[in-house]
């Protein structure tokens, strides 16, 4: 059968895509289990000659990494929560209400999504030092919140448009104010969209590097991407390569779990706001 043969071909191509996506991860995992003292002796191989846990012990006993992990989790979660709340209000207004400045707000969000963050590094660096929030959680949360807002606003307003608004009207007919209708009727319906937006926003904060190295200087607020670039290994005599890979594996685990559990939602979220025919 022609179509069955065709289906087999597409599956083969799909398998190639999977290999393409997974191969670098395999290399990361393999390198993270190599012996930090001997992995460079002789010609390098793909898999370790001997699998060791040393690198994981190294990163978890290094305060540079553990504090960075704490900072990354805290900053990303707080920035995500704030961005989602702020964007939720704006997205509701955009999807639902008619008010002056709506077009301007949307254009501004679009502009910020395209904005080169590097152009702000200098002024923010100076402003944050004057405000005393340089090298603090707040100093990273504020810009993360800002740069996550455009994506959050679009994604959520796209989801909000699919909500059956008759229900809100019905609630208003029954005597609820617009605010009550929002809180009691729309919020439960909108929860999946909000959750998806939170995932995408979290990925953005978890990934961010430029602001993280520019607006921090110690392990008070330094996040994992920034800390990785400063990592020197267990001692100055040891190569940091394998330990950096172990730390990379650790911070990739949450990403893989989120992707495995919420694959459908992420795909829907990525494409919801962006393209409609």
């Amino acid at each position, binding site marked *: 059968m022609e179509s069955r043969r065709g*289906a087999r071909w*597409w599956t083969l191509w799909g398998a190639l895509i999977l290999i393409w996506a997974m191969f670098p991860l395999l290399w990361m995992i393999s390198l993270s289990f190599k012996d930090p003292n001997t992995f460079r002796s002789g010609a390098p191989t793909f898999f370790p000659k001997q699998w060791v846990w040393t690198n994981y012990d190294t990163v978890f006993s290094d305060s540079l990494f553990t504090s960075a992990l704490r900072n990354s989790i805290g900053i990303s979660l707080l920035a995500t929560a704030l961005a989602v709340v702020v964007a939720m209000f704006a997205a509701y207004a955009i999807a639902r209400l*008619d008010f002056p400045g709506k077009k301007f707000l*949307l254009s501004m969000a679009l502009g910020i999504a395209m904005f080169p963050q590097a152009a*702000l590094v200098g002024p923010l660096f100076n402003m944050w030092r004057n405000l005393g929030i340089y090298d603090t959680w707040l100093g990273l949360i504020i810009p993360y919140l800002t740069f996550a807002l455009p994506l959050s606003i679009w994604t959520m307003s796209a989801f909000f448009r699919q909500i059956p608004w008759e229900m809100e009207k019905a609630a208003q007919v029954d005597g609820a104010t617009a605010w009550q209708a929002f809180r009691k009727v729309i919020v439960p319906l909108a929860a999946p969209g909000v959750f998806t937006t939170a995932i995408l926003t979290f990925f953005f904060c978890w990934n961010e590097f430029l602001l993280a190295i520019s607006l921090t200087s110690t392990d008070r607020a330094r996040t994992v991407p920034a800390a990785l670039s400063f990592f020197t290994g267990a001692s100055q005599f040891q190569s940091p390569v394998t330990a950096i890979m172990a730390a990379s594996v650790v911070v990739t685990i949450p990403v893989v779990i989120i992707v*495995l559990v919420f*694959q459908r939602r992420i795909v829907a979220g990525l494409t919801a*706001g962006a393209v409609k025919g």
Partner: protein
Amino acid sequence: MTTTEPRVEAPPLPPPQVSERTRYERRLGLALSAPAFIVMVFVTAYPLVYAVVLSFYNYRLTDPEGRTFVGFRNFTTVLTDPVWWSDFVTTLIITVVSVVVELVLGFAFAFVMYRILFGRSLVRTGILVPYGIITVVSAFIFRYAFQLDSGFVNQWLGLGEFNWFGERWSSLFVITLSEIWKTTPFISLLLLAGLVQVPAELNKAAMVDGATAWQRLTRVTLPNMKAAIMVALLFRTLDAWRIFDNPFIMTAGANNTETLSFLAYRQNVTLLNLGVGSAVSVLLFFTVVLIAFLFIKGFGTDLSQVRGDQ
């Protein structure tokens, strides 16, 4: 829709009630969007204006007292410096190559994800991992794979002692490769969303008319996806233009692999030269505006659907 037909029976709605409702809606709309608006202005618009102001001063944080107004001198300093142009060309090369490769690869991926029946969700899950991974981690993975003392690439390709990070072009190759691996999933999912929107009847009709698979692709599918393609292109181009993480981790800018974002970072944060650094920032911002303008006016990219206008 307004009808001009005179209605005899229906009494007009009392205007004050309507306008009060409208006013309430307006106030609520403004109130709900105010926090987002304020945060965005505070973190982007204000610092940008600040950068414009600083760019006209000779201002080093190492010598804050020596702050003097110098007019356009910082801009001429930057624009006559070969470093700016070298970084410009590097950024341009990385952007063009990665966006072109990603568009082709992303389209192929989208097509496979569209047609595949067995293992569809597995492929979609797998492709999301590079999307979610930290860019710095991706940079380290590729760096160590190509690096002489730790990497397997030279062994596998039989390249012996070839040092990938010893010269410009091979360094740019690895940097671009990491960028492509990490961001193709995003573009392919956007293209998949566009592909799904193409009416299947169009392709069936073309098939009945005897069009070949290639003709159907280039005459039916692609033209109908134009909006999706342009939006994906615009977003990826501007994203690639800001590239920073990969060159920073892989080469630290050695061998002419520094990009414009990297230059802005180095001037402002490493050298604390806020005057010249701000001039770089402002120029970088203008290049982005120029690219966006080219896409929107030049190629007719329709952003209304991205913006969510109704």
